[in-house]
């Protein structure tokens, strides 16, 4: 009992300390790095609370990809105008801001404690999901919920991801520089890193995809690991941002959404119910398509371009 309490106290105090550093740090770059560390501690907390799917997703997407996106944007700011990029700083704390944040924290605390009181009553949706799990052929209830029981939510989620990509691409200006590489893959160690880690990322992504049926994992985590490989390729200059998206890129962006939505609409043609659960191979196919789409979308969001082109070295 003391052991778990000590772990919880440590996690909570580190979490709050990191959050404070993110907000009050003098240097913007350090704030971003502290945010990545915050994400990793959140992943540990998800693990502590017994939800490993969320731990994987937070580590890959919340900490890793969000950190990469922020550092990429920060780098673009610095390249345009190094001094103005970090200007602005912090206002001296007016008392109003402290009061508001205290009230906000209190609101969350009250809501949280009230919510804890109400626990133990409901959970019928979850119970229904767990009871029908054996009918779906999946062992991982979260994957079943995401793909089958609440598949419509997931379709909208993929559309939001696509929408963010379209919006970011529309807003971004074409760069004069040839690429986004910061450490050329021709450097001895970087080349070796990229040659070992990128295939490994592919293997890990495929493993997460396949394991997501019965163990923690799934399409989103796998897609995020793929995107990490894509980020590494972009940073080492192995792929170069392109202004126009090729046909393959455009197709892979919408592939996942099409498969997921299609799996819901196609049963209608055969006289079945909208969004009826498909068989296990169909689930693997849909998840694979989603993995590809998520990986491609997140990689393109990082490189802030419409497409990526491989470079022959």
């Amino acid at each position: 009992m003391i052991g778990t309490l000590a772990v919880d106290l440590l996690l909570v105090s580190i979490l709050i300390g990191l959050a404070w550093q993110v907000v009050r740090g003098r240097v913007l770059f350090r704030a971003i790095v502290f945010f990545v560390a915050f994400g990793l501690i959140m992943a540990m907390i998800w693990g502590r609370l017994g939800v490993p799917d969320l731990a994987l997703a937070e580590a890959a997407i919340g900490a890793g990809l969000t950190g990469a996106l922020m550092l990429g944007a920060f780098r673009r700011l610095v390249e345009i105008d190094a001094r103005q990029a970090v200007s602005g700083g912090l206002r001296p704390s007016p008392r109003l801001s402290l009061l508001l944040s205290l009230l906000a924290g209190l609101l969350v605390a009250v809501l949280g404690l009230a919510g804890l009181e109400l626990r133990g009553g409901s959970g019928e949706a979850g119970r229904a999901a767990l009871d029908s799990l054996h009918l779906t052929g999946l062992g991982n209830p979260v994957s079943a919920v995401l793909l089958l029981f609440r598949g419509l939510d997931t379709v909208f989620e993929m559309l939001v991801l696509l929408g963010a990509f379209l919006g970011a691409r529309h807003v971004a200006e074409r760069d004069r520089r040839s690429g986004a590489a910061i450490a050329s893959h021709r450097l001895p160690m970087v080349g070796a890193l990229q040659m070992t880690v990128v295939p490994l990322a592919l293997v890990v992504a495929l493993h997460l995809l396949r394991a997501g049926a019965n163990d923690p994992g799934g399409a989103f985590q796998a897609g995020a690991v793929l995107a990490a490989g894509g980020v590494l390729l972009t940073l080492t200059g192995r792929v170069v941002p392109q202004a126009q998206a090729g046909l393959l890129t455009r197709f892979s962006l919408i592939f996942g959404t099409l498969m997921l939505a299609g799996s819901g609409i196609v049963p209608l043609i055969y006289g079945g119910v909208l969004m009826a659960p498909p068989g296990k191979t169909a689930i693997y196919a849909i998840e694979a398509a989603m993995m590809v789409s998520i990986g491609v979308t997140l990689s393109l969001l990082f490189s802030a371009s419409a497409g990526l082109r491989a470079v022959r070295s």
Partner: protein
Amino acid sequence: MIDVFALVLLIGGCGFMFAGTVGLLRLPDVYCRLHAQTKADNLGLLLICAALALLSESLLAASLLLLIWLLGLVASTVSAHLIARHARAAERVDRGKGR
């Protein structure tokens, strides 16, 4: 018996991680800090992974932990190399400006 050994490895690993962090905070130069950070942290990670591998139930988990340590090694090594390169380049620029 194995538990005690794993506990000793775990405490040692945490000690080395702590030393690395102290080095990061207290050493004067980028290069010194890189030394402390990567060397101590790699060893600390090795000890922690070894302890967890001893405590794990399956050979699969133990080999996954070995893979984790190798990946951590590769990542920190290349990062340290790139940081040192960048620091050297920045130094040359400063010296070139006659500082």
